[in-house]
């Protein structure tokens, strides 16, 4: 049994069958990549996992519990954190405040009406946020406006925010899309470090094969809304079906 079990999931948009009969099992503490040509249904699948979309059929179980019909915030509270393709952070807030919010969400839950105490006097939250910033190498930027940072820094901040919630499963949606080579390599190193040092499962949707083969220890190939193969990286490389799916697409 994997930590995330996707069974027979289907999703249709009008006349388009975006997903059909998707089965996927993500093992605990693995780095599982989901790859596939454009329009294969990767993003739709991801959105079904985090509560943005509700599949028409099938089931999605996380750690033995169904996530279907739950709101994104509930699914997050179950232990799934999501990193977006373009970094989604609180641009109007400072870097430190950005980091404090997930810490508060972890401690106090989805809603807590604490309107009187000063947020800066919450020692535990402050320490935790600063420690995470330290780990992300951005402590000296803590008073900066998050929106004013470079894209690479925003990505680091977003990953740090997700990690500070101590999630069991980290979902990444093309985390290096639009990045320069150097930034991409930095992100790969960061993710490697995270998966080595932490008790965490990572599921990653990616286009860039360099990223996929540097990180993943399990790969699912999605084509036309349905899984083609699921295997170890070395076997995927040589698989003729995969080649066909990609070449057919690019040709």
């Amino acid at each position, binding site marked *: 049994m994997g930590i995330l079990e996707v069974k027979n999931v289907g999703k249709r948009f009008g006349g388009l069958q975006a997903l059909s009969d998707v089965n996927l099992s993500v093992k605990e503490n693995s780095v599982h990549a989901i790859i596939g040509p454009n329009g294969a249904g990767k993003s739709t699948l991801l959105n079904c996992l985090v509560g943005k979309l509700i599949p028409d059929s099938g089931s999605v179980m996380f750690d033995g519990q169904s996530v279907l019909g739950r*709101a994104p915030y509930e699914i997050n509270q179950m232990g799934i954190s999501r990193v977006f393709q373009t970094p989604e952070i609180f641009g109007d807030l*400072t870097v430190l405040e950005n980091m404090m919010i997930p810490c508060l969400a972890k401690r106090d839950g*989805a809603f807590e009406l604490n309107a009187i105490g000063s947020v800066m006097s919450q020692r535990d939250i402050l320490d935790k946020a600063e420690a995470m910033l330290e780990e992300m190498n951005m402590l000296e930027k803590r008073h900066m406006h998050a929106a004013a940072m470079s894209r690479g820094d925003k990505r680091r901040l977003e990953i740090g925010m997700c990690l500070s919630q101590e999630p069991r499963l980290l979902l990444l949606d093309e985390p290096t899309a639009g990045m320069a080579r150097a930034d991409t390599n930095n992100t790969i190193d960061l993710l490697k470090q995270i998966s080595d040092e932490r008790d965490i499962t990572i599921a990653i949707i990616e286009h860039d094969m360099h990223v996929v083969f540097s990180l993943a220890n399990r790969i699912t190939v999605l084509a036309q809304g349905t899984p083609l193969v699921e295997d170890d990286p070395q076997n995927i490389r040589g698989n003729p079906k995969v080649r066909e799916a990609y070449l057919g697409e690019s040709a």
Partner: protein
Amino acid sequence: MFGLEKRDTTLLLIVAILTLFAPFILNPFPTGSGLAQFNAGYPDLMQRFVIFGIFAIGFNILFGLTGYLSFGHAAFLGVGSYSAVWMFKLLSMNVLPAILLSVIISGLFALVIGYISLRRSGIYFSILTLAFAQMSFSLAYSVLTPITNGETGLQLTLDDPRILGASATADGSIPVTNLFGLEMRSTYQMAVGAWDFQFNIGYYLCALILLAAFYLSIRIFRSPFGMMLRAVKSNQQRMNYTGLNSKPYTLAAFVISGMYAGLAGGLMASMDPLAGAERMQWTASGEVVLMTILGGAGTLIGPVLGAGFIKYFENIFSKINDNVLHGWFSFLPDGLEDFVVFIVHPFIGKGWHLTLGILFMLVVIYLPGGLVEGGQRIHGWIRGNKRGDASQSKTNPAE
């Protein structure tokens, strides 16, 4: 002090000094001098300053922090006024129960309206609040006449029951509002030389409540709750994917700001025990929007400044007439004097709203941070590092 950071304590002290010494500050010209008409140290005017200050502080908790633009907040002010007047009619002329009831009722009202309106965001939210407020206004004018007394407005009469008080005083008139015997209208006049300062009980009650309301808003701004509200404004998507349910946060902000509006309405009725439907009209809601934006939405002191600014100049402008203008410009040659007076004339007296509209547009276009941003820019300009201060003011949005 008071569990606040140094900067916030300073801000609170400034507001405290401004409000407590307002009878002096607003009365700079000796009685009988030509400029005395520009004094603003009269009880009813000063009461209006602080009451609208409270209203704007509350509105800012919603709009300034979450970015949800409500165009119906006057409805809560109106409900607060009606509740307070009913308390005067039924229970007693003590303002305390009246103010409490107005806060509670407007809070409940805000809970219902907020619960429905907040199912939408952006412009739809604005239109929903607008629709609710206009509906309340129409109902108050027509069907709810037994409660609101329709067009005439709700007033006290000699045959009101007033269970814990007298229906009428010994000399047969309607009793006056009081706080455990301290009459709201009683005013102590202090003559110092040519000056005549007025200290009014009602004003000081309002001022103390304003200080409490301001203090509470500072606490809210600096609290985890306040940070969550700013997160709502900044990025709701990220918030939801961080395990936070933004709905109850915005609803709580909506109810709190509705209660502030109700408090302002209750105080208004406590100072002058009547309530009319026109207080609920959407242009009245627009006024508190103007105050907050003009002062600086999302800043602590902005709404107070905006409310004071608008109410002060509303009073001053309405008093300026052509004669006053001729007096001011008499140093100019005759033809030029007439010309200047002719140009300025549309903007004064009854033209105050024109001036206000233009001012408001200029602020929205050029100074989105309102008077507070203006102050910061001038400050930075004086220090000679315009650039540096602009970025600094951005990092401290909740000044």
